[in-house]
Each structure stands twice: as C-alpha cells, then as structure tokens.
C-alpha cells in the first residue's frame, strides 16, 4: 500500500494553500528568519525566502506531511544559506599562512584558515561584540554562544535566570538582526 508514500510529502497544492493562509505573524517571522540566515551569503533575504518557496513548489525540497510548512521553509532557507556561504568561501582566494620557505609559493593555497580569513573573522567578531559595548552582560552572552555554551552554561555565565535571561536574549537578537544588511555573521 502506498499510504506511507502518500503521507511522505505534502502535495504542491497543499503547500500552496498553506502558504496562502499564512498569517501576518508568519510572514514577519519568515522575514526575520530569512534575514538571520542570509548573513554573508550575498543573497537578499527576499531572494532566500523566495528560493526556499520555489524549491518546495518545484519538489526539489519536499515538505514532509508531518512537518509544519513554516518550519520546512526555515530548514530550507538554513540549508540554502549554508550552501551559499560555503560556495562563497570556496571562491575566496586563500593566502597560505605558512612561513616563507616552508611552503612553495606555487603550491595551492590551503583550503583551511588563511591570514585574510583570520582577519575577516576577527574583524567580524569584534564588530559583533562591539554592538554590546554598552552591555557587558549581553557581550558575555554572545561570547558564550560563540564558545558553544548551552543554555544552562549561558545562564551561569551571565548570572541571569528566567525572564531576565530571555529579555537579554531578545536584546541580543534584535541588535544582531540590525547587522544583517552588512552580513557580518559569516
């Protein structure tokens, strides 16, 4: 019986109908998420969202029937943006970081960490942290996230709990979203 197969993915008509019924809040959320994902991809957030919808409609990214369409679009945007960032990284000429004489100049550049990339990363990191110069606790929170701290560790680091912690996360989110046009979170 193909019942499981039929349930495997939403039909295109179902996806279209669901998106047409999206609320104003759904669109605002997708707008903000697209903004958060398009950092350093070279894409505009509209382009990213439209591409995610297009791939879903065309069936190159099927939406499983048990997955919410908004969530599916979020995951698809995340996947597309990861791919675009990697593509952008691979197009950047890499300057070897090895000491003179250690690596032949004609040898292909390392695909790993180059001096230029390191500078770009450090500059970007400083810019992100600079957003919170007036708020050391928020700065700690961002540094903790960059260091892969989990929620409990972040709460311990910042000394914040409950509403105070959530409020600080919201402040961080809103300031970071304002960075998006420059695309610094690469």
């Amino acid at each position, binding site marked *: 019986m193909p019942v499981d197969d039929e349930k495997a993915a939403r039909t295109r008509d179902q996806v*279209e109908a669901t*998106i*047409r019924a*999206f*609320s*104003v*809040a759904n*669109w*605002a*959320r*997708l*707008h*903000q*998420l697209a903004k*958060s*994902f398009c*950092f350093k991809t070279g*894409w*505009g957030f*509209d*382009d990213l*969202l*439209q*591409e995610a*919808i*297009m791939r879903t*409609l*065309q069936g190159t990214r099927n939406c499983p029937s048990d997955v919410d369409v908004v*969530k599916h679009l*979020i995951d698809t945007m*995340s996947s597309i943006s990861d791919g675009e960032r990697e593509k952008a990284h691979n197009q950047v000429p890499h300057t070897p970081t090895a000491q003179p004489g250690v690596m032949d100049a004609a040898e292909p550049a390392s695909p*790993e*960490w180059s001096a230029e*990339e*390191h500078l770009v*990363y450090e500059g*970007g*990191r400083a810019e*992100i942290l600079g957003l919170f110069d007036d708020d050391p606790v928020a700065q700690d929170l*961002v540094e903790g*996230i*960059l*260091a*892969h701290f989990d929620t409990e560790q972040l709460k311990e680091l910042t000394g914040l709990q409950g509403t105070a912690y959530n409020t600080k*996360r*919201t402040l*961080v*989110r*809103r300031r*970071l*979203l*304002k960075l998006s046009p420059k695309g610094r*979170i*690469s």
Partner: protein
Amino acid sequence: MTERKEAQKGLQSLRQALADDIRDASDEEILAQFTEDVGSPDENAARMRALFEKTVLLANKGRLHAARAGAATHKVSSADSPIPIVEARARLRQVLDAHAHDKSFTLAARKESELSDADVVDMLEVMRELGLLSE
C-alpha cells in the same frame, strides 16, 4: 578541530541561536518587534504574498515546460526557438538589467548566463505574461 572550523562553528552557533529565538518567539512578540524595528507587518505580509504569487507563477511555468519537454517526441534544438537563442538571451539580459532591483525575481532567475536555452525561452514567456516584456 582546526581553528577555522572552530571559528565557523562558533558563528554557526550564533546564527542558530538567533534563528531559534526568532522561531520560538510568540506571534505577539514577533509582531511587536517587527513593528518597532522594521515597519508595518501588514505591509510586509502584503509584499510577501505578492512575491509568493509570482513565485507560484514561475513554478507553474517551469512545470508546464517540463511537461511539454516530456511529451515531445523529439528534441527541440535552439535553432527551433521562435527567435534565435542569442537574441533571446540578449533580450532576457536587457529585461533583467532593467529590473535589477526588482525583488520579484529569484537570484537564480537573475543569472541569465547560468540558464539553459530552454529556460531562457521559458523565462521570456513568463515575463511576457507578467507584462514585463513589450512585444
């Protein structure tokens, strides 16, 4: 883990945290912050819905094209196009350049050089239907 991967993972964590927070925020919170930081959520929704309808139209044309291609019993060469493909590409570039800042087009659609001949012809057809192309 290399230094680069470590740094990438850190930034990935930050992006993910940002995305998780937006995803998990309540509708009320999202709408209030959107209004304060970006503008009218209603206008945004109207713009997004219009963009969606254009995307549906483009996807429909793609599906139609695929169906036609599947039904064809012989391959159609570029020489069989209604206009020579070089001319078609030039025409498409012209229209895309004229709408370089139009968010209605996906980024992929704006890269004429990466489109196949069939896609170029199809895209021109869609643009004609959207009224973007004068006869």
